[in-house]
C-alpha cells in the first residue's frame, strides 16, 4: 500500500492508488523537462497512460505564485507556503486521481526541490518537512545530478540567468553570475543531503541528453516492471564538482588526476546493460 511521510490528508485513500508515481528531481537548468518530454512518448508507445505535472501548474495557486514572484514583496516563509498550497492542490486534484486511474505520474520536481529551496532560504528543516508530511512517498525519485561548473554553461547558453534561479532574493548585492554560483552550490549541497535521506536514485546529468535518457529510461522501466532497485545503479558523488571548495582543494593536491576523473563518464555497466535491455535491439 502507498504511504505518506506523516499524517495523510483527510479522505486520502492510500489503498486505491495503483498507478506509479515517478519523480524527476534536479536543480534549475539540469534538463528535467527535456527528459520528461522524452519519457512521456516512450511510455505512451508502450500503452502506459501518463500524467505529467510540475511546480506552479496548479489551477488554484499557479497564477498567484507567478504574480507574487513578479513583485518584490514576497517573503521567504510566504513563498514556501505558496508553493506548498500549489503542491497540495496538484496532489489532490491531479496526482491522486491519476494514480487511482492507474496512470504513470511523471512529476517534474517534487517536495524535495521545494524543501531544498526553503532550507537554503533559512527555513527550519523540521518545519518544512512537517509542511510536506502529507506527501505521498513516490515509487522512485531519479535525481539528475550535476556540478555547478557543468551547470553554468548550460544555463548561460540556453536561457540565461533568472532572478530566482540565481537566488538574487538572498544574495542581492552580487552580480547574477556570482549569485547563481553561490546559490546553486548551496542548493546542490542540500540536494545531496536529501538524496541520502530520501534514497534518491542518482543519474549523472553531465553527458548528452540521449545518454542521460538511456539511464533514466532503464530506471523507469525497472520501476514499472516492479523489479527491485539495483544498488549499483546509483553513481558515486562527483568529487569536487558539487562543492566548489572541494574542487579547489582537490586541484591543489599533487597528482589529482585520478581523484577528479568523474566516475560517471564511465557509467556503471549495470546501468548500460539495463538501458540496452529496456531498449531492445534498436539504437545501440
Amino acid at each position, binding site marked *: 500500500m502507498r504511504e505518506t511521510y506523516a499524517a495523510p490528508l483527510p479522505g486520502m485513500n492510500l489503498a486505491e492508488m495503483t498507478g506509479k508515481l515517478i519523480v524527476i528531481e534536479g536543480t534549475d537548468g539540469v534538463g528535467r523537462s527535456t527528459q520528461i518530454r522524452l519519457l512521456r512518448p516512450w511510455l505512451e508507445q508502450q500503452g502506459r497512460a501518463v500524467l505529467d505535472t510540475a511546480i506552479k501548474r496548479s489551477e488554484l495557486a499557479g497564477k498567484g505564485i507567478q504574480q507574487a514572484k513578479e513583485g518584490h514583496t514576497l517573503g521567504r516563509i510566504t513563498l514556501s507556503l505558496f508553493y506548498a*498550497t500549489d503542491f497540495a492542490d496538484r496532489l489532490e486534484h491531479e496526482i491522486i486521481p491519476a494514480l487511482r486511474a492507474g496512470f504513470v505520474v511523471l512529476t517534474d520536481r517534487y517536495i524535495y526541490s521545494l524543501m531544498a529551496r526553503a532550507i537554503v532560504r533559512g527555513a527550519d528543516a523540521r518545519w518544512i518537512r*512537517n509542511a510536506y508530511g502529507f506527501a505521498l512517498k513516490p515509487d522512485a525519485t531519479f535525481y539528475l545530478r550535476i556540478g555547478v561548473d557543468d551547470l553554468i554553461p548550460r544555463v548561460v547558453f540556453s536561457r540565461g540567468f533568472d532572478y530566482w534561479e540565481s537566488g538574487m532574493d538572498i544574495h542581492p548585492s552580487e552580480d547574477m553570475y556570482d549569485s547563481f554560483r553561490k546559490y546553486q552550490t548551496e542548493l546542490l549541497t542540500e540536494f545531496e543531503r536529501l538524496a541520502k535521506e530520501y534514497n534518491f536514485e542518482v543519474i549523472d546529468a553531465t553527458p548528452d541528453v540521449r545518454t542521460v535518457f538511456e539511464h533514466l529510461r532503464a530506471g523507469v522501466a525497472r520501476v514499472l516492471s516492479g523489479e527491485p532497485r539495483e544498488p549499483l545503479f546509483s553513481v558515486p558523488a562527483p568529487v569536487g564538482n558539487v562543492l566548489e571548495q572541494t574542487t579547489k582543494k582537490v586541484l591543489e593536491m599533487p597528482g589529482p588526476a585520478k581523484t577528479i576523473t568523474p566516475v560517471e563518464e564511465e557509467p556503471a555497466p549495470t546501468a548500460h546493460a539495463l538501458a540496452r535491455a529496456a531498449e531492445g535491439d534498436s539504437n545501440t
Partner: protein
Amino acid sequence: MKRYGEHRFPGKLFVVEGIDGSGKSTQLTLLHQWLQGEGYGVVFSEWNSSPLVRETTKRGKKKQMLTPASFSLIHCTDFADRMEHNILPLLKAGAVVLCDRYIYTAFARDVVRGMDSQWVRELYSFAVKPTAAFYFRVPLDVAMKRILDGRSGVKFYEAGMDLGLSESPEESFRIFQGRILDEYEKMVPEFDLTTVDATLPIEEQQTLMRQIVKAKLAQAKRLRVAP
C-alpha cells in the same frame, strides 16, 4: 527561522479570537479607538487580508475547489505574508498591533476540517506569541442568533458546507461552529487564552479588556502625548 515563543520586540501584539457572532471584532474596534486616543501607534491586521494571496483565495472559494489541506495552506500563506511584511516589522518598530483572528482560528478550523492538529501547529510555528490573546466565549445559540439576524446568509466555507455536514446551510453552520467552539475550549489552557464572557454587556467586556491591555503596555511607544 524563529519559532513560536515570547518575542522581545518593543511592540505589543493583542489578538481577538472566537466564533462568528462572538462580538470580538466590535471589541477590537473599541480597543483600537481607545489606544489611538491614548496616543499609541496602533496598527490593525485582519485574518485573510494579504493582497499578495487575495486573488488565489478568492478563486479557490468561488470555484469551491479548496480541500481541507489547500484551505489550510492558503490561509497560512496569507498569514505568513502579513507576519513577514506587517506584524513583525511593526512590532520591531514598537507599534501596538491588533489582530482580528490569529493562529488559533486556523487551529480550530483546520482541525475541524480533519487536518492533523500537530501538523497545523507546526505549520504556524513561525508566528509570534501574542502579548495577550482574548477569547470571546459565547454559547452557540447566542452567536447563531446574532449572525442569522444580521446577515442575509452564510457563505459556503463559512458554514463548513465543504464538509458535507448537512444539506441546509444553516444546519451545517450550526454543526460546524459547534465543533469550532469545542476546539477553542481545548485551546484555552493550551495557549493560555484570556477568556472574556461575550454575553456580558459590550461596555463591561471593553472595560475588562482595556484593564488587561493597559497593564501590558509599559514599553509600547506613544506617537504623541495623550490628550
